[in-house]
């Protein structure tokens, strides 16, 4: 177990290096000068541009810049934003991470609960109208891109019906539309998977045994059925959490949520290199940690893994 943990932690650190190096080189190689973008369509004297380039170390070779970045990052210093003159990247990331984690965990829990419920009900009502309609809705959900769904929901629920606010991040009501937008696709995917997995499990011998033992059908379905059916689903949940995290870029921009996704989009458009890297790092950490936790959860769900490791 210890060795396994060490391996995983090594892998996480290695992945973080990879992710930052990639983001670092890509953002700097992409055309677009952060200083020119700050000036917009106005003229900026060359001496001012040069002075800024030197100050931010942009006149150094990329690998040297990356070396400095890593050295500073290891000491908890992610640099200062170019756009928010003089502000530490960590100061910008902190509140944004809290915002994103808050509303996205709502979305993730919502997606999982609804998906498991729909999947189990469909499997139990296999080939009835309940099953067909649930799976049709799920197919629709998979096919709808986030931005289309978001626009549609704003039009309907905010502008026409006036039930919910259009955008912003002030009250819990502001969470509703973005959480549904972000949850819909993973939820639809997951519910189909739960259904398939559940169908398979329902025909296993141990299910017959459990029923023969005289257990109530609720116990059979939840303790013997669902527990085994969720095993393959768990792996997918890990990947889906990654999708949800990256989905925040579009959804947070549309619903104007001041989270890590919107911060990242604005930073990319402004070529605010330190903030781009900070956002990448934050998302990479969130993704790697969530898959790590899922891996540990296997052991909880399947005792066989615990004993062998």
């Amino acid at each position: 177990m210890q060795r396994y943990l060490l391996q995983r932690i090594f892998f996480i650190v290695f992945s973080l290096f990879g992710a930052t190096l990639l983001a670092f080189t890509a953002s700097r190689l992409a055309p677009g000068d952060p200083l020119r973008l700050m000036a917009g369509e106005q003229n900026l004297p060359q001496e001012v541009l040069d002075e800024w380039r030197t100050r931010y170390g942009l006149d150094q070779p990329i690998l040297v810049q990356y070396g400095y970045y890593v050295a500073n990052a290891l000491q908890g210093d992610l640099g200062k934003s170019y756009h928010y003159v003089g502000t530490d990247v960590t100061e910008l990331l902190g509140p944004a991470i809290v915002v994103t984690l808050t509303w996205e965990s709502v979305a993730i829990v919502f997606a999982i609960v609804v998906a498991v419920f729909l999947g189990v009900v469909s499997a139990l009502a296999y080939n009835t109208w309940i099953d067909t309609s649930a799976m049709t809705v799920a197919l629709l959900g998979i096919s709808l891109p986030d931005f289309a769904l978001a626009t549609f929901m704003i039009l309907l629920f905010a502008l026409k019906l006036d039930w919910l606010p259009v955008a912003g991040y002030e009250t819990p009501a502001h969470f509703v539309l973005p959480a549904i937008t972000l949850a819909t696709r993973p939820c639809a995917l997951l519910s189909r998977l739960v259904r398939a997995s559940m169908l398979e499990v329902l025909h296993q011998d141990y299910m017959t045994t459990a029923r023969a033992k005289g257990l109530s059908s609720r116990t059979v379905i939840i303790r013997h059925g669902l527990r085994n059916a969720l095993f393959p689903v768990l792996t997918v949940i890990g990947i889906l959490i990654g999708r949800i995290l990256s989905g925040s870029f579009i959804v947070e921009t549309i619903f104007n949520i001041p989270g890590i996704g919107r911060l990242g989009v604005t930073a990319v458009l402004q070529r605010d290199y330190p903030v781009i890297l900070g956002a990448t790092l934050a998302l990479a950490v969130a993704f790697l940690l969530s898959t790590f936790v899922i891996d540990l959860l296997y052991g909880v769900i399947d005792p066989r893994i615990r004993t062998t490791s």
Partner: protein
Amino acid sequence: MLQKTTKVVVFVVLMLALSTQAFAQDEPTVLRFPITSDPASLEPGLVKELVSGQLALNLHAGLFTYDIDTNVVPYLVSDYTVSDDGLVYTFTLRDDALWHNGRPVVAEDFKLGWERYLDPSLGAQTAGEPWEVVVGGTELFAGEAEELTGVEVINDQTLQVTLTRPSLSFLQSLATPVTWVVPMESVVEGQPEWVDGPVGAGPFKFVEWTPNVSIVLEANPDFFLGAPEVDRIEFVVVPDTTTALAQYEAGELDIVAVPPAELERVSNDPVLGEEIQYFTRAQIQYAGMNQSMFEPFQDVRVRQAFNYAIDRETLISAVLNSAWTVATGLVPPNIPEYNPDLEGYAYDPAMAQQLLADAGYPGGEGFPTLELATLNSTNAEAIAAMLNANLGITVEIIQPERGDMIDGLWSHDRWQFFLFGWTADSPSASVWTYEMLVCGLDSNFSTYCNEDVDALVDSARTSTDFEEAKADWQAAEAIAMEDAAMIPLGYSRYIYLVDPSVTGFRANLFGPLGFETVVKS
């Protein structure tokens, strides 16, 4: 007993009703205005982009400011004189202006503030203009002096500035926030963004800045021109302009800029259509013909043919829903050197075909395929179609991302033909006629070059007489138009939706003014 309880209940309910009534009356008026990003800085001397400029106009005050017609008008100055040789300016400051911390604004604040801006490590953009004309400015910026010798504090209310040469644009510089100062006691070293709260002398005081979310200001009751009507302004960060529009439609914002793609729907909407307000903007929209990248553009006949082949009226009315007005020159209206007599190029396909044939490409034959780089494909499609229909040439549209586009423009080696805008930071022809036309300048994206234009521009820039300079500017612009240095398309406008409950919203050539005149009912 029961009666007594009832009485108490009635009393309590009454009191509650009264108190909520009282609260309702006290409820402050809040103006909610979207900004596309946080300001880069709340210090006026570090203003680099529109959002910072907008905040500065509400928080700060300077010696002069621009009014709604973009005239320079005294602000913190009550009176001023200029010596006959145009070198010595003596400013008398108002005696009723206070910083937000309660201390009176005095002449020394400006000397100290300006000296601070000239410290190169601060990164103020104004290194260069206007300080190069102030005695001692260049030396201080180069680190060769300790003091800005050309600025002298006569007494608390009197400030004297000596210039190295007469300058027609000096007062204009004093009217832009980059020369406005802050009291030295409020400066936090190494923290120019001032998250903790800036101190200014403007109509609104700083309350709170939540990065990425909003900036809140409140009315300054001691503002020297009288307390503003609105109690609070909330500048809400909304990077996506379409989201901002939807928020406006749902009543979550009071004023919003209309995104170009939504203009058609908004102007045809029976309700929204009534709430649109247009303001002239100091920006030209043009098609640039990069002569160093595309050889045929070196022939003036080709450039003229392109100018004649584009139907600007149709482009602007049918494709752009009148977001612009037709451009007849390079310098937009409301700029002092604007030339109303310039006619520009009429739409004349026959003339265009003739010129192209004269240049050796009859019916577009043998004319290489041309790439048009643009950030907005709608305009580009229309222009490509007109050029194809009228000249028989093939134009391929490429749509780079904004950062890529700007990079390529400044390096001159990426885009053969491009659609772009050029915006003023001061109301002077120099912005267009100098920056876009003079040989060898980086900002001359078309790589156009004409010695006659250069000579006239040079003479205009060094002239001390406004009328003489204006004549030179206009002559240079006329030559560039004759030369078809570029294809001027339109002068853009600011287009805002303003909620009917809001009055007194103003904008001049540079954008919205401070909100001190805004009333929200």
